[in-house]
């Protein structure tokens, strides 16, 4: 085969194909295909003739077509120059075999749509590349399976694929022999001096080369398009201004309502218009007012009905239920409880004064033993029924004690020997596990200054009062309770002040002159000074109670103070309330002798005797003997300020202040002695009476007044003290102590603690009725007495008349 450089125009096809083929072939430039193939283009006629139409007989997937040599030769003979195969006539004739391979070059890899394979080897290669590949793959697989023999490649003869041509083209070789030149010059011209001469560059053409400036168009180009980025920002502007600064000034406005002057008012009142107006309007008012009178339209009957109903349902259990009971084996064994007090602020804490259960003689006999056992006030808490929370040590048995209403940390107690003591509980009651803390009393009054008999009652004066040295009550601006009243059977009532004496010193200075001038008729004397120190505490005032009818004095047992500050409530809030001198009144129960019980009503005030200028206390205004035994309770009702309950002997009585005829209600004699009584805190008509056999009588005055509505036995011995307490609206407790030293806490059932509707009103009406009854009885008595007198006078007259006749 001749290694002919194929021509650029490889086809001789006719017509329109030629140009296209030329251009396509021209772009390829005829190189880049192997030597043993020949690209050619076949016309559609040729294609049909040989059965190798594009995309029909031969496709991209099946590009091979075998053509017979004889067919090609015959075609060349037939169509001679027109035949597509004519340029390769020689090649075809030289082809050794009978069949030629025509390959459809769909992608024009070699420049034409077909190429003819010229060598048998190439044909074989074309037809069997896949096979070869397959063989090779098979061959490859074999060694992996067998691992037997590794085929080493043997050197094979170099097969030229046309790369030599390329190398030749690239290599640089001489295309012609090199020329040699020899140049010579005359010797004399070497080294000759050089002469420069000037020459005008402009004379000759091309004498100089110049770079002429020209306007570069680049700089005058107008930029029609420009790529820039844009960002927006808010428009920010700073500015400032100055305002006029004015000083703040306090200003006030005072206003008063517009009012008419008197004459204007008179004018108005006399005008016709007003008269007409009032006449026309009066009828409406009368109707409206009468409507209100007839019926209250806003009254909720349904609700009122329900209240009574629920009362019925709960009637099943009206008894006092035992809630808890406290006894201390160590401290209250063989002792009795003389007084109970609930702690005013701490819930569930109750204080109990424990005293010895001995008569006077036994006391004297066993006094040494008594000295060893200190008397105590025990504090119980509901959380611990076995151990008391706190013990207060007292010098002697305490018969009565009270918490200070304004400061629950202060307690005052009155002892058996007449001393007054104040332990101060500055520590709050906490739960102690092992040791019950013992607190000693802070201050005790001196024995010579106190009472000479056991103090039976001790009370705090209300915080708004203050008693001066002269017995004049004054307003206490602090509102704290600072003064105490005590009484004892040694016939006097004493007022004590717990403040430091400095406050009263000034008063003492002011009145010093007066005081010094007038020695008192009181057997005990008015103290000039006193210091608030232990053992030197003296009472502020001593009041003795001279008897009304006879000489001598009463020995008081219990005090009840009338507290006037709650009743008189003016429209303006609290503020100033200066009590008049006669507002503080005492109701005292006294014993004249151990059998009788008297009730004494007095207005305590140290009066000045004008003659001698001495101070003495006025005689009590009233006294009553009602009870058969010692009056052991004098209590005011928490609902009515002027209703007092007294309990003594076998009866109890209810009194109203101001009614001096007698008690408005007096109970019948009961079987056993009544030892103590107390009003119920929540129901105005209920009271509790303790008996000497351990019963509690519950009296409901609206239900029946001839006998207690309920009796319940609490303990086996005498009841010594009853105190109710309201813990919450659901729980009302009653503390009852007995002679054996046990404190029982009972729960008051619903029937006894919730008032029926209008109970207070009913009670007040009842009391009024009773008062009326008393008054009526009094009148009747007078009338009867008068009648009797008249009758007797009449009889006498008749007798004398008869005589005379």
């Amino acid at each position, binding site marked *: 085969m001749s290694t002919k450089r194929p021509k650029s125009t490889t086809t001789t096809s006719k017509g329109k194909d030629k140009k296209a083929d030329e251009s396509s072939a021209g772009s390829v430039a005829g190189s880049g295909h192997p030597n043993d193939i020949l690209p050619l283009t076949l016309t559609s006629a040729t294609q049909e003739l040989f059965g190798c139409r594009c995309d029909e007989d031969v496709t991209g997937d099946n590009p091979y077509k075998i053509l017979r040599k004889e067919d090609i030769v015959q075609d060349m003979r037939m169509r001679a120059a027109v035949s597509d195969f004519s340029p390769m006539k020689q090649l075809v004739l030289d082809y050794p075999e009978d069949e030629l391979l025509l390959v459809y070059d769909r992608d024009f890899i070699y420049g034409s749509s077909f190429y003819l394979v010229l060598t048998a080897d190439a044909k074989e290669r074309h037809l069997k590349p896949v096979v070869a590949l397959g063989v090779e793959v098979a061959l490859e697989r074999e060694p992996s399976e067998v691992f037997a023999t590794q085929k080493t490649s043997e050197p094979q003869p170099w097969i030229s694929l046309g790369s030599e041509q390329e190398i030749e083209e690239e290599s640089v070789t001489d295309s012609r022999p090199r020329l040699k030149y020899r140049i010579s010059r005359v010797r004399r011209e070497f080294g000759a001096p050089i002469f420069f001469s000037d020459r005008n560059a402009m004379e000759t053409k091309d004498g100089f080369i110049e770079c002429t400036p020209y306007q570069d168009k680049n700089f005058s180009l107008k930029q029609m398009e420009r790529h820039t980025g844009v960002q927006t920002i808010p428009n920010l502007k700073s500015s400032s201004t100055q305002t006029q600064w004015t000083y703040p000034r306090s200003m006030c406005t005072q206003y008063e*309502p*517009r*009012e*008419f002057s008197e004459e204007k*008012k008179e004018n*108005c*009142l*006399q*005008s*016709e*218009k*007003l*008269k007409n*107006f*009032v*006449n*026309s*309007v*009066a009828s*409406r*008012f*009368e109707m*409206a*007012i*009468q409507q*209100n*009178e007839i019926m*209250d339209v*806003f009254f909720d009957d349904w609700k009122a009905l329900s209240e009574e109903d629920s009362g019925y349902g709960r009637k099943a259990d009206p008894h006092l239920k035992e809630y808890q009971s406290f006894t201390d084996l160590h401290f209250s064994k063989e002792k009795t409880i003389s007084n109970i007090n609930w702690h005013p602020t701490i819930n569930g804490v109750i204080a109990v004064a424990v005293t010895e259960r001995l008569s006077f003689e036994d006391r004297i006999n066993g006094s040494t033993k008594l000295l060893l056992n200190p008397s105590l006030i025990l504090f119980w808490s509901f959380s611990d029924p076995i151990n008391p929370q706190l013990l207060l040590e007292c010098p002697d048995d305490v018969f009565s004690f009270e918490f200070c209403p304004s400061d629950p940390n202060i307690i005052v107690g009155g002892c058996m020997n007449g001393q007054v003591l104040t332990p101060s509980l500055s520590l709050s009651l906490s739960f102690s596990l092992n040791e019950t803390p013992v607190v000693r009393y802070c201050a005790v009054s001196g024995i010579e200054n106190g009472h000479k008999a056991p103090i039976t009652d001790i009370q705090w004066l209300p915080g708004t009062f203050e008693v001066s040295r002269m017995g004049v009550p004054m307003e206490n601006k602090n509102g704290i309770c600072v003064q105490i009243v005590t009484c004892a059977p040694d016939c006097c009532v004493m007022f004590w002040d717990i403040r430091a004496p400095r406050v009263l010193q000034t008063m003492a200075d002011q009145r010093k002159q007066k005081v010094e001038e007038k020695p008192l008729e009181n057997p005990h004397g008015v103290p000039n000074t006193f210091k608030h120190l232990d053992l030197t505490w003296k009472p502020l005032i001593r009041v003795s109670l001279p008897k009304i009818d006879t000489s001598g004095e009463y020995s008081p047992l219990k005090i009840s103070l009338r507290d006037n500050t709650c009743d008189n409530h003016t429209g303006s809030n609290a503020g100033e309330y200066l009590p008049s001198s006669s507002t503080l009144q005492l109701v005292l129960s006294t014993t004249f002798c151990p059998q009788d019980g008297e009730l004494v009503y007095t207005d305590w005030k140290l009066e000045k005797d004008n003659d001698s200028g001495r101070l003495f206390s006025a005689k009590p205004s009233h006294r009553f003997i009602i009870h058969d035994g010692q009056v052991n309770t004098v209590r005011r009702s928490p609902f009515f300020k002027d209703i007092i309950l007294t309990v003594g002997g076998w009866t109890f009585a209810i009194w109203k202040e101001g009614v001096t005829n007698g008690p408005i209600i007096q109970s019948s004699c009961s079987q056993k002695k009544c030892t103590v009584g107390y009003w119920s805190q929540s129901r105005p008509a209920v009271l509790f009476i303790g008996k000497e056999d351990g019963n509690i009588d519950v009296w409901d005055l609206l239900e029946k007044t001839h006998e207690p509505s309920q009796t319940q036995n609490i303990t086996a011995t005498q009841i010594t003290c009853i105190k109710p307490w309201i813990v919450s609206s659901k729980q009302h407790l009653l503390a009852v102590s007995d002679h054996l030293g046990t404190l029982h806490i009972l729960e008051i059932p619903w029937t006894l603690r919730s008032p029926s509707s209008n109970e207070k*009103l009913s009670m007040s009406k009842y009391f009024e009725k009773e008062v009326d009854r008393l008054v009526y009885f009094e009148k009747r008595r007078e009338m009867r007495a008068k009648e009797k007198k008249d009758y007797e006078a009449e009889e006498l007259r008749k007798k004398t008349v008869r005589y005379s006749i």
Partner: protein
Amino acid sequence: IATFLGRKLQPRPQNEVEETLKRIQGQKGVQGIIIVNAEGIPIKTTLDNSSTVQYAGLIHQLVMKARSTVRDIDPQNDLTFLRVRSKKNEIMIAPDKDYFLIVIQNPSD
């Protein structure tokens, strides 16, 4: 001044007004009566001064409001009587063109 003329100057309208007011006052539960003029200035009262002034000022505003309410709903209508019932008492007001009459009553217990 009037006596030496030989006849009483006190005209009868005064008595009538007084009588009517006494009659109203005498009803059960009435606590006080105030006559107020159209501007809210009290003319006659049975209560103390401070209460009167307070009632007059407050009730005047209330009546104005109530009256304007009634008239806004129906311009032909007008307020004739206003009763304010509270827990403790009832305040009754009768307005007029020139005056109001205020009565405070404690309804029956």
